[in-house]
């Protein structure tokens, strides 16, 4: 079995907070429509979300954006607490969620420091017009279970099959578009890069290595939890940083 270790790199320097990734994710993964009502209930489902933080004092206030999706932690706190193995760690370094096993204790959601696990409080519903755009490769989750970013595992699998059929390495550049999760493909500024961290010439590895080695921008979110995530963030290069600090 090919021992990939899927990972993602998020270059915060490039993120404009345009939310394209969020929309792409919604349509790719059959995520129910988050209408105003759901937001008021604080129950929207966004496998990837853009968190916006204000930084600095007026006049030089800055909006900081950080896209947060499932970090697919190596030592995921969410996994061991599930009584029914609905979430576990697979051989590709993915933190997989088996909807069919899930009974909805929401324990994993509590234990995830990144808060990227979402509970289906209601039976998901789509307006008639959108019924036909549901992605056939992705299960429609029923109510009462947890769900979260899968790194678009359906795309990974399909690419793997294609690669087997036509030959070639699924992690190589030729398959990049079909391998990439929806959010990565949708990102206009190439903030997000996806790939196999075990393959040194995959785009993700390159970005990570270059930045961590040369510029030392690479870090992972909430390191003090020791979850050892598969998502690497690259610090924002901020020429105004000094002013912000002293401003």
């Amino acid at each position: 079995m090919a021992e990939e270790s899927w990972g993602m790199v998020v270059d915060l320097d490039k993120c404009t907070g345009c939310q394209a990734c969020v929309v792409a994710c919604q349509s790719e993964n059959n995520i129910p429509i988050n209408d105003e009502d759901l937001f008021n209930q604080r129950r929207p489902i966004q496998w990837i979300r853009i968190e916006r933080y204000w930084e600095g004092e007026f006049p030089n206030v800055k909006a900081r954006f950080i896209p947060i999706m499932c970090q697919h932690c190596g030592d995921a706190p969410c996994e061991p607490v599930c009584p029914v193995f609905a979430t576990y760690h697979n051989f590709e370094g993915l933190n997989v969620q088996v909807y069919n096993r899930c009974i909805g204790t929401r324990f994993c959601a509590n234990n995830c420091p990144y808060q990227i696990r979402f509970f289906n409080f209601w039976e998901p519903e789509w307006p008639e017009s959108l019924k036909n755009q549901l992605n056939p490769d992705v299960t429609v989750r029923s109510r009462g279970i947890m769900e979260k970013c899968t790194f678009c595992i359906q795309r990974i699998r399909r690419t793997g099959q294609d690669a087997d059929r036509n030959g070639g390495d699924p992690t190589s550049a030729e398959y990049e578009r079909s391998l990439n999760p929806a959010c990565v493909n949708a990102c206009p500024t190439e903030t997000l890069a996806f790939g196999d961290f075990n393959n040194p010439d995959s785009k993700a590895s390159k970005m990570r290595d270059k930045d961590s080695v040369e510029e030392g921008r690479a870090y992972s979110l909430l390191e003090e939890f020791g979850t050892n995530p598969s998502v690497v963030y690259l610090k924002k290069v901020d020429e105004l940083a000094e002013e912000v600090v002293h401003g």
Partner: protein
Amino acid sequence: MNQRSLLGLFTDEDTAADALDALQAEGYGTKEYEVLTGTPYPEGTFGEAEPIHKLFRWPLIGAACGFIIGLILTTGTQIAYPLVTGGKPILGIPPMAIIMYEGTMLGAILFTVVGIIFESRLPRLFMGAYDTRITEGYIGVAVTTDEERLGKAEEVLRRVGAEDITRG
């Protein structure tokens, strides 16, 4: 041979004790007579023989069984379908210890209860001679013996001063 039983009722402890002595004097074995009370008394209040029991073995056996079951359950289930979660070992000792502990205690308690019921010679299908006044504070001396020796016992109990005598 067929065992019959009869019961003498006494109002106070000392007469009951006398009755036991008398029966013993008449050559009745300790197996043949027993005191029935509606409340616990300090051991040997009536000079009766101290009951022997093996209750303390039960919980130990139960604990052993429970522990083994717990062990099999925890290791077996995890090995049967090994899934890595949170980088923890498939056979993590601490969680296994918890469930094995519960199993051990459950086994110990179940066996103890069975042991208690068994050691107190329950359930008893045939009550034999019994009187509801015993739970009203009377003290009963029940004699269970062969048909022919029963009359003698009855006469002894009367002599000592039984309130009432019933045959069962």
